[in-house]
């Protein structure tokens, strides 16, 4: 309505101010037209529903019919990515530093599709459980039990599977925890048993020497091993002539990474392998003299147990390191074939080449020093020039010494590492000296003397401390000794995996052979593990 009033006011004033408006007819026509338009507009506005809800038509009243939501059948498909059917569940457990993806490719192929030479079995697929490793072994075992008792038990019930038909397949620490769970399940008033058999790959059921050697609470040698490598291999005298090949391992444990950064310098690190979670609390219980390790290996399990243990070929260290690197990198080959981890030669070749390179560098530097000394001799009349050449010869000698030490590192790293894992024990006892005198250059011979002072001659003599040493070597998979992973009282079988290291044994062609034999029922005493193919 204000619009209408405004319009009227405007046009009422206009006639008095315009000299051309002499007739009243056009004015009346215009006023009438505007009045009519104004009335039409006001009616149009009042005709909107929101303007007068009371004029709206009412909805028809009556009962509301709710439709039931379409839910999946209660087969617990939510528990896993797939809901394969089967007669049993294989619960795959990773090792220390591992996760669900340690086993998931193999678990998937076992439940469905299979791979070349490995038929799928009638087992229900569940995501391999990732258990926590920030506590002791009992805490990890309780974590696994919680998973088995909830997800595992529910999935079993949905498939009408008796839980004691299920199998735990553990790698390394996972196998140890499986045996610990077996012992926990003796407490029937507390636990309900959730599996009826165990396959343990490379599990240190009698303790791991490596755990004690590397853990900060043990000998704490992991950091020292890396520091020694860094000091030796990052010597600037090696770098000057040729920048060495560098490798940076993204998955390196933070503690080791810190040691690398401190010793080698940021961005210039060479670390031959990654040790993940080597300082986790659970490792302490794997010390060979720890109560758990001492008891677990002596205990007769309540269920059928099969141990699969690896014995790696030499050089154990470089082969294991190759497989560790391959596992940590993108496993493209594993994506299509979960048993594709047979190759372990890469770092063996690398170490040999590095040894040869540093040997050659040392030889070149010594010859260069010899050439410089020749020049010093030629320049002897000009003493300053001679001294400069002699000084350069010293620098060449230092480079040769650094290269010698680097070559020795590549030569000895395998044996040093085997000491760390308990696969090599070397004891040296001092026993006098070797003596060699320069007055006998054409008939060089070393003879033993009790004291260095007993070694004397006209032209001077050289003595070398003489050691008697005893050497004991044991087969291993590069992490765990065969004697620890392959011996358990009451185990139905111990299966040797030749030429297989600790990392390979999850995904090698030998793994395929072991699992096929087991699930085919071809292992004597292991009928429990027989599982039909799809």
């Amino acid at each position, binding site marked *: 309505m204000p619009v209408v009033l405004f319009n009227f006011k405007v046009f009422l004033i206009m006639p008095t101010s315009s000299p051309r408006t002499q007739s009243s007819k056009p004015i009346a026509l215009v006023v009438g037209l505007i009045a009519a338009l104004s009335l039409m507009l006001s009616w149009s506005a009042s005709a909107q529903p929101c303007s007068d809800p009371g004029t709206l038509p009412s909805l028809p009243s009556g009962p509301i019919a709710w439709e039931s939501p379409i839910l999946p059948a209660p087969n617990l498909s939510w528990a896993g990515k797939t809901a394969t059917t089967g007669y049993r569940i294989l619960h795959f457990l990773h090792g220390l530093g591992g996760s669900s993806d340690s086993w998931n490719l193999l678990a998937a192929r076992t439940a469905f599709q299979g791979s070349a030479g490995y038929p799928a079995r009638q087992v229900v697929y569940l995501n391999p459980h990732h258990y926590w490793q920030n506590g002791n072994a009992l805490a990890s075992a309780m974590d696994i039990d919680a998973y088995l008792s909830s997800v595992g038990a529910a999935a079993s019930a949905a498939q009408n599977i008796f839980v004691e038909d299920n199998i735990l397949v553990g790698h390394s620490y996972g196998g140890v925890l499986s045996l610990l769970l077996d012992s926990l399940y003796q407490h029937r008033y507390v636990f309900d048993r959730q599996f009826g058999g165990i396959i343990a790959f490379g599990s240190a059921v009698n303790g791991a020497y490596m755990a004690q050697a590397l853990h900060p609470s043990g000998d704490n*040698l992991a950091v020292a091993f890396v520091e020694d490598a860094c000091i030796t291999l990052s010597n600037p005298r090696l770098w000057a002539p040729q920048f060495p090949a560098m490798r940076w391992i993204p998955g390196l444990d933070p503690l080791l990474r810190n040691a690398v950064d401190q010793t080698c310098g940021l961005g210039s690190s060479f670390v031959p392998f990654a040790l993940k979670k080597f300082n986790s609390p659970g490792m302490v219980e794997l010390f060979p003299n720890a109560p758990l390790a001492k008891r677990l290996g002596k205990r007769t399990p309540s269920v059928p147990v099969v141990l699969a243990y690896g014995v790696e070929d030499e050089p154990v260290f470089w082969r294991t390191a190759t497989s560790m690197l391959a596992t940590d990198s993108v496993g493209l080959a594993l994506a299509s074939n979960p048993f594709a981890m047979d190759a372990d030669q890469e770092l063996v070749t690398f170490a040999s080449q590095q040894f040869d390179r540093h040997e050659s560098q040392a030889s070149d530097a010594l010859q260069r020093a010899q050439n410089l000394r020749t020049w010093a001799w030629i320049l002897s009349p000009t003493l300053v020039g001679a001294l400069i050449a*002699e000084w350069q010869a010293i620098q060449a000698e230092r480079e040769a010494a650094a290269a010698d030490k680097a070559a020795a590192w590549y030569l000895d790293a395998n044996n040093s590492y085997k000491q760390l894992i308990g696969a090599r024990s070397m004891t040296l006892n001092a026993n006098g000296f070797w003596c060699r005198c320069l007055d006998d250059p054409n008939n060089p011979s070393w003879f033993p003397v009790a004291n260095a002072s007993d070694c004397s001659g006209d032209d001077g003599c050289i003595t070398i401390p003489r050691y008697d040493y005893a050497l004991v070597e044991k087969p291993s998979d590069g992490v765990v000794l065969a004697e620890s992973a392959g011996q358990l009282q009451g185990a139905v079988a111990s299966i040797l995996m030749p030429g297989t290291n600790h990392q390979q044994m999850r995904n090698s062609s030998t793994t395929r052979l072991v699992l096929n034999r087991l699930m085919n029922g071809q292992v004597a005493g292991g009928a429990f593990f027989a599982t039909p193919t799809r």
Partner: protein
Amino acid sequence: MKHALLFPAWSLMAITLSHSASAQSSFWTATETTLRGSRLSDLADTAYLLPWDLEALKMRETRTARQWWTDPDGRELTSSQVLLSPREDWMGSPPAPAEQLGSPPMRSSIPPEGVRLDEAMELGSGWTLTWRSATPQQVYSKGDSSIAFSWRPSGNRWSVAAEERIFSRSTLNGLCMQDWSLTERSTLVGYGPSGAESPPSLSLQPNPRGLQELQVSLEGSAGIWPTALRCVDSFGRLTAEQPPQGTLPLTWNPKGLTSGRYTIQIQLGNQTYASSFIQL
């Protein structure tokens, strides 16, 4: 001032040119045996050693046959062939030898002219050089570290008989160790630009030969590897050849030889040594 600076350079160039001009064909060979390892400063209980220091205590032996020669351009070259290597089995075979610039460790006089015996010369950074008189030795030293070269007469020259290197270090857990090596070199065999000084002589046994194996040896050169072994008849035609089978002395049984006079040729680097035998 500029002339003062350039004077030593002209002197150096003159010496270099004269040395180059005098370069003539020469060939020397020797076998080097090196013992290498770490050792404790004092005899001690090794139970405290870290694994890698324990491994380093083992003495490793390397044996190489080394040659030095002058090429047609007057350059002095050297190469070495590994005869005994500390390599582990898994390392495979050693790489093929490569040539590099290098002069033999020989001098016409020891010590150099103008050097005082038994008097340390400062080289910088704490290193000194001393020529010792008791044993003909050239010794570099710094603290507990030293590099010593023992010289011995070789014909009418001197050659390095032994090289001993000691570099001190401390282990990560604070023990004192030495990285030690000793290289002993057999007497150099060959000839120099001024004429034969100890000419190698090829020896064949038995001679005359029936169906027996030939024993091929080079006097004073046990342990040296030949790069080729050939048998030629009296007209110079090749009748038998075999690739290197190891170090001298060698046995060889060239077959199918008719009666007559034959010559065995041994190639050492760029040198050929020959000796004849009668085939019955």
